């Protein structure tokens, strides 16, 4: 009964979405206030209906209702409760339902929270949002219904892929989807503005918090995904340039560009059509991400649904939405007023370079991700594009960006005084050069590029801190006055400082863990000793452990350093009898200096009983990858709590954030 209620709610939601997609926008065209206002209740109703459907599916998972196909395929009565709940979105159908739920929640949020958005813009935005909703709801109802029944019902389910039974991964899809779908709001705003034919600073002010929220969620989602890959896959890597990783990274890169260009549109009224284009492209890349993951077009370590029919449907949606919005853009954008002038060296100029480089970086990732598809379609050759491609194309674009990032916040709007900026940065430059020499001297192996990247990260961190300390006049005025200034500086600029510093911290982690990593792989028997990165590791054997829905062989590794006990690592090899599969649980000893990482498997053949394959790694600074990501997320959140964004007040005083320090 409950699944039928879910199905019925979903059908009603589709109808609501169709009405919401037509009535308000028509009302906006004919200036009919009642029709326009109908957007608010229909967005709320749609949200409630989809929430009912989602609740119904979640209930089926929680009580293990094995008359529902989706539950049979992705759950098991023995599975821990957390993963029963997470199983709701673990499958293709469930994840789509989550997608549409988030879409509807965002739509309802715009409808209910956006009190000060002009009625016509709001009506058009919500209608565009409803078109996206219609596409996904119909996709779900016609090709992948989560409420399909099975008869006779099996006694127990097939269990969720054990690799996916993990807290980090349980949270990964929702965050990623909030990011993707958050950009859909920005997309809807952009399309509505194009239909309206008007983009003003107020528009950018409504768009910015949504972009920021989406960006924060996407950052968190990507970071969680990479953390999961790091400790769950047992390879000790955190980024593989895998197609599925790339498709979440591309909206992030372009979303970052959007975040910065929206600032220019808001503060200076410039970059209008560019901001609109970025909004369209960012969401298009999010759709492309969904398409690539769901269609299984590319060989990927993550791909788990290979179904050309669904792929064709999403491809249709993709062509319709990207093609339609870009056509609209081509018709409307040239009429837009280009906005304020600025000198090449200015805050605008800096953000222009930021946008150009981010767009280029996105283009190289897009090229590397889709090139195998094109080549196969044209010549029939099957190729894969590996990390060497991305390292050689992406990193050279990002390094100059990070250099400019250090200077950017020092530049004033319209025209900046470059010698003055360098004068304020002279000590930062000196310390950066010294640290370049120190790292160069200390490094024993690893590429020269790594040394350079380290120095650039030092530069970014110091320049960011310097900008922050100048802003609160640390050391120039009394401490209490500095503290006072600290409170008065808008949260968005604290957010920027935190996020920029976070990126610097991330780069330390990226470089340290990839350029100076040590790795050993070998067969071990009880008593085998290994020496790695100054640690003496002894394999003492394995123990058997019974888990809730698995049995595990736990390796015991005694780690010593200079004759003293450091820790005991216990990597696990788990066997899930129901899912008939095995997973590797790495053991990690984390310190700020680096992680010691061990994983074991039994050799694949029988003649080596008693022997285990041990993989042990030392990854310097790897923890900084996630510390930096956390700083990025917190920076975004801090900025999101800025009063000006929250209130969305149209007051146009001279904003403190833009007051250039150059003038001081």
């Amino acid at each position, binding site marked *: 009964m409950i699944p039928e209620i879910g199905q019925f709610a979903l059908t009603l939601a589709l109808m609501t979405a169709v009405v919401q997609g037509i009535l308000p926008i028509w009302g906006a065209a004919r200036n009919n206030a009642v029709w326009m206002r109908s957007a608010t209740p229909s967005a709320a109703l749609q949200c409630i209906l989809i929430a009912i459907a989602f609740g119904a599916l979640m209930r089926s998972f929680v009580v293990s209702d094995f008359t529902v*196909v*989706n539950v049979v*395929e992705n759950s098991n009565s023995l599975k821990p409760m957390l993963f029963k709940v997470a199983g709701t979105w673990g*499958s293709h*159908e469930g994840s789509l339902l989550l997608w549409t739920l988030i879409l509807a929640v965002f739509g309802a949020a715009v409808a209910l929270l956006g009190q000060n958005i002009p009625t016509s813009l709001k009506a058009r935005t919500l209608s565009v949002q409803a078109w996206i909703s219609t596409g996904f709801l119909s996709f779900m109802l016609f*090709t*992948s219904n989560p409420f*399909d029944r*099975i008869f006779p019902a099996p006694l127990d389910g097939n269990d969720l*892929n054990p*690799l996916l039974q993990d807290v980090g991964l349980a949270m990964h899809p929702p965050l990623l989807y909030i990011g993707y779908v958050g950009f859909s709001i920005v997309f809807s705003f952009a399309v509505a503005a194009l239909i309206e034919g008007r983009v003003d600073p107020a528009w950018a002010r409504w768009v910015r918090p949504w972009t920021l929220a989406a960006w924060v969620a996407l950052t968190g989602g990507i970071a969680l995904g990479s953390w999961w890959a790091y400790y769950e896959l*047992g*390879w000790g890597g955190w980024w593989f340039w895998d197609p599925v990783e790339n498709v979440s990274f591309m909206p992030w890169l372009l979303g970052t560009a959007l975040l910065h260009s929206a600032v220019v549109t808001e503060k200076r009224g410039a970059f209008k059509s560019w901001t609109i284009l970025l909004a369209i492209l960012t969401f298009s890349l999010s759709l492309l991400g969904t398409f690539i993951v769901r269609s299984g077009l590319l*060989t990927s*370590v*993550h*791909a*788990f*649904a*290979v*179904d050309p*029919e669904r792929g064709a449907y999403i491809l249709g949606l993709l062509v319709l939405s990207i093609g339609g919005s870009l056509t609209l853009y081509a018709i409307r954008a040239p009429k837009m007023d280009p906005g304020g*002038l600025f000198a090449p060296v200015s805050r605008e100029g800096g953000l*222009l370079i930021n946008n*150009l*480089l981010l767009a*280029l970086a996105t283009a*190289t990732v897009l*090229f*590397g991700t889709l*090139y195998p598809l094109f080549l196969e379609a044209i010549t029939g*050759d*099957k*190729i*894969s594009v*590996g*990390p*060497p*491609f*991305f*390292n*050689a*194309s992406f990193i050279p*674009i990002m390094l100059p960006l990070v250099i400019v990032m250090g200077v950017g916040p020092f530049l004033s709007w319209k025209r900046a005084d470059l010698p003055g900026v360098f004068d304020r940065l002279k000590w930062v430059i000196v310390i950066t050069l010294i640290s370049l020499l120190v790292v160069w001297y200390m490094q024993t192996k690893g590429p020269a590029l790594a040394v350079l990247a380290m120095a650039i990260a030092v530069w970014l961190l110091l320049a960011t801190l310097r900008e922050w300390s100048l802003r609160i006049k640390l050391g120039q005025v009394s401490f209490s006055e500095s503290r006072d200034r600290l409170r008065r500086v808008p949260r968005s600029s604290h957010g920027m400082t935190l996020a920029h510093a976070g990126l610097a911290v991330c780069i330390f982690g990226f470089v340290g863990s990839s350029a100076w990593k040590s790795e050993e*792989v*070998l*067969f071990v028997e009880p008593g085998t000793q290994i020496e790695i990165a100054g640690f003496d590791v002894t394999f003492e054997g394995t123990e058997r452990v019974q888990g809730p829905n698995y049995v595990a062989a736990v390796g015991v590794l005694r780690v010593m350093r200079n004759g003293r006990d450091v820790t005991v690592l216990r990597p696990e090899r788990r066997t899930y009898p129901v*899912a*008939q*599969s*095995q997973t*590797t649980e790495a053991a990690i000893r984390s310190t700020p200096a680096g992680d010691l990482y061990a994983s074991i*498997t039994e*050799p*694949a*053949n029988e*003649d080596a009983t008693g*022997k285990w*394959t041990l*993989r042990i790694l030392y990854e310097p600074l790897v923890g900084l990858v996630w510390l930096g990501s956390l700083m990025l997320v917190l920076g975004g959140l801090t900025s999101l709590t800025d009063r000006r964004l929250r209130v969305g007040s149209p007051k146009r005083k001279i904003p403190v954030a833009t007051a250039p320090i150059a003038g001081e």
Partner: protein
Amino acid sequence: MMTLKKRRRIQVIVLAFVALGIATVLIGYALQDGINYFRSPTQVTEAPPPPSEKFRIGGLVTENSIRTVGDASVAFSVTDGNATVPVVYVGMLPDLFEEGQGMIGLGSLVDGTFQATEILAKHDENYMPAEVIEALEAQGVYQGGRQETEIGAGNDS
């Protein structure tokens, strides 16, 4: 006389083209060693690529072929039903690596043996790399059966 507005616009366009040019050069340069061709065991046997070329090989792990060699290497062979290529790999095999199952390896061919630096197996029971399916189909080995129904699972069932 060009207005300032027009001049700025041209500057931006020139900058964009310069950036695009740099990106094209970088992509072209990165493509030289960043891409790996996929070859089936039959293709490798018929036209062995030089040891300097990194490529991917894919097929089924031959039954009873997995052995350990020395301190850390695993040896097995990969087949598409027509030709079989020996593989040596130093490292940990993926969780779902099994005899008779599909795999993809990245590495190079040295003296007739594929020296793998990376091994991918199917990542769950529903998944078989598309390249492997095609390579097997080319040899008439792949009859669908279990794998195919599994791939279709969840669709309209």
